[in-house]
Structure formats: C-alpha cells, structure tokens
C-alpha cells in the first residue's frame, strides 16, 4: 500500500506539472499577443510595449515558463492585471461562496439521489421506477442554466419566496441572508447533479442485483432489501467512491454556470469576468487551481478505493 501511495503521489505531481505547463503554454505560445488583444484598437506601440513588459511577455518564453513554475512552487500565482491584487487573495475571497455552494449541492444530491437510484433499480419495471428513471434522464438532458432560470421564475418571481440572485455584500456576517441567497443555487445544482447520480446508482444497483451472492442470500431467506443492504455497500463501494469523486468535481465545475445564473460572487464568476476582461494571471491561476483540485480528488478516489476494496489492493 505504501509503495502504491508513493507511486500515486509521484504520478500526481507529474500530472500537476503537465497541467500547469499546459495552462501556461496554451495562454502564451498560441498565436495571438495577449498585450495586443488586451488594449483598445489604436493603442500606440509604446503602450503595447509597456503592457508586454508588465505581463513579462517581452522576455523569452522559456524564461517566463521558469518564472511561472518557480512562483507556482512557492504558492505565488501573480497579480491581477487590472486591480494589481494578488491572484491568490482574489481566489481566496471568492471561496466563501463557491465552497459552501459546491459542497452542500454535493451532499444534498447524495442524500436525495442514492435512495431514489436504488428504488429505481429495484422497481425498474414498476410505473414509479420507470417514471423516476425518465425524470433523471430529462434532468441530465436539460441544460443546468435552464433549470436555474425556471427555478428563479417560479420561486423568486411568481412566489416571491426567495431572492432571485446575488449575495449580501457583507457576506457571511449576515448568515441568514447569505443562506437565503444560496438556497436556489444549491437546489438547482442538486437537481442537475442528482439526476446524474440517480443514473449511476441505478445501474450500480442493477449490477449488484444480478450478482450470484444476492441470489444466494435470497435463497437463504433474506428479503431483497436485507440482501441488498448486507452485500450491496461492501461490493459496490469501489464504484461508489469513484462516482462520488466524479460528482464532487462536476459540482465544483457546475458552480461556474450556476454562479452566472444567480449572479453570485464566487470563483466561477471571477473566472468568467477575467476571461471576458482578459485578465491572464487570474484565468491562469483559477484554471490551474480547479484542474489541480480535480487531479487531487482523483488521487483521493484511487486511494480510498483501495482501502475499501481488498480486491483492488491484491492487484496492486
């Protein structure tokens, strides 16, 4: 296990390095001069040179690359082009919105979708089971922002029950208002993530149902729910862990669109605004951090899978 862990961490560091380099080179080496696109049409060559110097793009690419890697290792992601504030501070300032949003949608979709998915599998020929699967299919096919708009229209415009968007300027100092403004975004993200999870759980349960050990347990006199409960979790654990990893990653990414629908000042809207204003350091830093989170989660998933499933450990 230890040697596996060491190899896996080495692999992660390698992936982070490649991902970081990919972000860097996509933004720098692709044709198109950021300094020119950044400035208004008709800027003087002097202005362009000044921006190039500020961006560091007047130096050789390899020197810039070394600089970016060195900064990355020391945890420095540079400064915003426009506000001059450190990128890391700006990102940190957005986390109090994005992290609660992503985590509560993630947990809520587990609580809601797992029982529904198991039910849909056990009753796959019943009317309700088919209805649930169809709804989940529809939930996957509908764009998440469409669901958000409809939710806003129904709850905020028709019923006037909750604010349609935004986040209190004082942040979490007013916990009531902050929570209120997160209800609809979390609900929307949960509908989207939950639909995906229902499909996964349903097919994983169908898989367990068709296994010999369930038939054996049934023949020993266990009822179907008891047989599932006794053998399902242990046998399906590795798959479940993998699905949860994917779900957490997609919850994090889903916030980019959700924050735009509900005008929330989170990481996703920081990224979107920076893309539109071409604030390279922020785009570079945010995309790298999000990708790094996905890669680290991949490692956690692999390790936990081995912990819960001895069959994977044996293979090494």
């Amino acid at each position, binding site marked *: 296990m230890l040697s596996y862990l060491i190899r896996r961490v080495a692999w992660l560091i390698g992936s982070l390095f*490649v991902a970081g380099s990919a972000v860097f080179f996509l933004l720098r080496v692709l044709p198109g001069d950021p300094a020119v696109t950044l400035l208004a049409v008709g800027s003087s060559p002097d202005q362009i040179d000044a921006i190039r110097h500020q961006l560091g793009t007047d130096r050789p690419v390899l020197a810039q690359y070394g600089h970016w890697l060195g900064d990355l290792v020391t945890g420095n992601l540079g400064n915003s082009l426009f506000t001059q504030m450190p990128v890391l501070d700006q990102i940190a300032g957005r986390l109090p919105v994005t992290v609660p949003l992503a985590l509560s949608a993630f947990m809520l979709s587990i609580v809601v979708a797992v029982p529904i998915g198991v039910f849909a599998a056990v009753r796959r020929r019943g009317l309700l089971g088919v209805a649930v699967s169809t709804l989940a299919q529809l939930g996957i*096919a509908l764009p998440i922002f469409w669901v958000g708009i409809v939710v806003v229209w129904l709850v905020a*415009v028709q019923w006037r029950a909750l604010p349609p968007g935004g986040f209190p300027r004082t942040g979490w100092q007013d916990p009531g208002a902050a929570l209120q403004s997160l209800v609809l975004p979390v609900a929307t993200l949960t509908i989207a993530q939950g639909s995906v999870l229902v499909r996964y759980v349903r097919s994983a349960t169908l898989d367990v149902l068709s296994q010999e050990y369930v038939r054996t347990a049934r023949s020993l006199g266990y009822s179907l729910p008891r047989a599932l409960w006794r053998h399902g979790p242990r046998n399906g654990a590795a798959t479940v862990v993998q699905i949860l990893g994917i779900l957490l990653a997609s919850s994090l990414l889903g916030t980019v*669109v959700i924050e*735009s629908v509900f005008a929330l000042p989170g990481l996703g809207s920081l990224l979107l605004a920076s*893309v539109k204003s071409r604030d390279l350091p922020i785009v570079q830093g945010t995309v790298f951090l999000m990708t790094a989170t996905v890669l680290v989660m991949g490692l956690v998933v692999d390790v936990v899978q081995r912990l819960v499933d001895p069959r994977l450990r044996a293979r090494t």
Partner: protein
Amino acid sequence: MSTPLVEAVETIEALDTPARRRRGWRSPSFVLGAALLLAILVLALMSLVWSPYGLDHTDPAARLAGPSARHWAGTDRLGRDQFTQLMLGARTAVWIGLASVAVAFVIGVPLGLLAAAAGRFVENAVVGVIDIVIAFPTLLLAMLLVTVYGASTAVAISAIGIGVSAEVARLTRISASRVFTQDYVLAARTCGTGPLMILVRHVLPNIWHTLLVQAALAFGVAVIAEASLSYLGLGTPPPAPSWGRMLQEAQSTVSVAPWNVLLPGLAVAVTVVGVNLLGDGLREVLDPQLRQERQAADR
C-alpha cells in the same frame, strides 16, 4: 431446468440473424430517438431555405409579445421572432455539434488505436495525457481558448472537440485492446499480417459499432456544451442565433415574458434526449451480445 435441449433452443433464439436485426431497428427507443432528432434536423435544414422572418427582422411594435398567429413563439425584447431564432439556433447547434464530434473523433480514434497497438510505454504516455485532458473539463478549456482568441465558432468547436476527444480516445483504446488480445489477431500476426492491416481487417470492424454509439452520445454532450458556452457569452458571437444566448436574453425578461424561456430549453432537451435514445437503440441493434444479455435478464 437447463437441459441440453433447452440450452440449444435458447442459443438458437439468441442468434444474431438479419430478421432479428431488423426487429431491433423497431425498438421503441430507437424510433422515438430518431423521430426527436429528425424534428430538430428538419428545423435546422429548413432554416437554410425558409424561416418565418429574416435574421435581422425586428417588429418594434410587438416587443415581448406572446405566441400569436404572426409570431408563433412570441418575440424577444427587440421584437425579434422567436421561432425564427429557434430555427436558426437549431442550425448553429447541429453544425457545432457535428463539427465538434468530427474533431473529437479525428483526434481521439487514432490516439486510442495508437495506445492499444503500440507498446506499454506509448500506451502509458497516452493514458496519462487522456487523464489530464479529462481533468481539464470542456468549459475550462473553452475559457482558456477564449481568453487568447476571443469568442468564436471555431474556438467553441475546438474546445468542445478536444474536451470530448479524451473520452473517445479512452473508449477506443479499451475496445481496441480487447480485440488485440483475441486469438484471431495472434493468428493474423503469425501469418505475417502487418499492424495496419490488422487494424483495418480486425480491429475497426469489431469496434465501429461502439464508436458509432459513442458518436451519438458525444453529439448530445456537444450540444449542451455549445448552449452553455453561448449562455455564458463564450460561444458563437452575435448575430448568429444560438439556443444558449436566447436563454441568456430571455432570463433578463423572465418576469414579463416567461414563455421565451420555454422553447430554447425544450429544444436542447429534445436534441439530447433524442440522441441518447438513439444511442441506446443503436447499441441494441448493433451489439448482439448486449441483446442476448437483455433477453436473458428479461426472462
């Protein structure tokens, strides 16, 4: 009660005969999926020759009007006919969807085949690249590209295509590796057949149906991605209509004209549900093994 006779009968019943294959084409999911997709395709193709109004036509007197005989789906805040926008949006969605899937397959399939056919070292390298591209979701990739190039149709197609190609490469590698371990490949190799010939004669014929189903599903993913990008303002720039931007515009007027939200969202859903059903149907028609399993499970 499995006597040899019963087993023999079951084997014959499960055989993949042309008649059975034809029956597969009539599976409900295939027919429904094809019908939904056909409706979208007709909208998109018809927009090439006819639409209720021109792209730039506005009707200032009837801004944010509800559905009527003159404007079947109502108008937006500039007085543009929503049905016209929907038809032209279908064209954008289908075009970007097809082009992205083409990009994904042109990159993904050769990469997957290379990984499966080459030695362990190349395979590990390709798998590593695939893992990293999968960690870069389409949306982030699109954002990086838009930062450099600005929003355009080509950027949307490249970003979606590259994002989807990782999944295509992964699937191609897995299915091709399975074929490469078969005895008939070993036999062919023993006879001196070159790797290219093995690919053409043995691997591709055995994996094309998996890839076709994947192409259908990828098209659905691409349509949703296109809608999301244009909703965020990172997709095809105006004036080319797109379902995502229609929704973004409809959101700002949702309190006075909620009906404008309905149709573009429904159009995306119809397309995606359509290709998913079509993919399921295709899988049943093309994969004899899966059909046998289904029949066994239903017995």
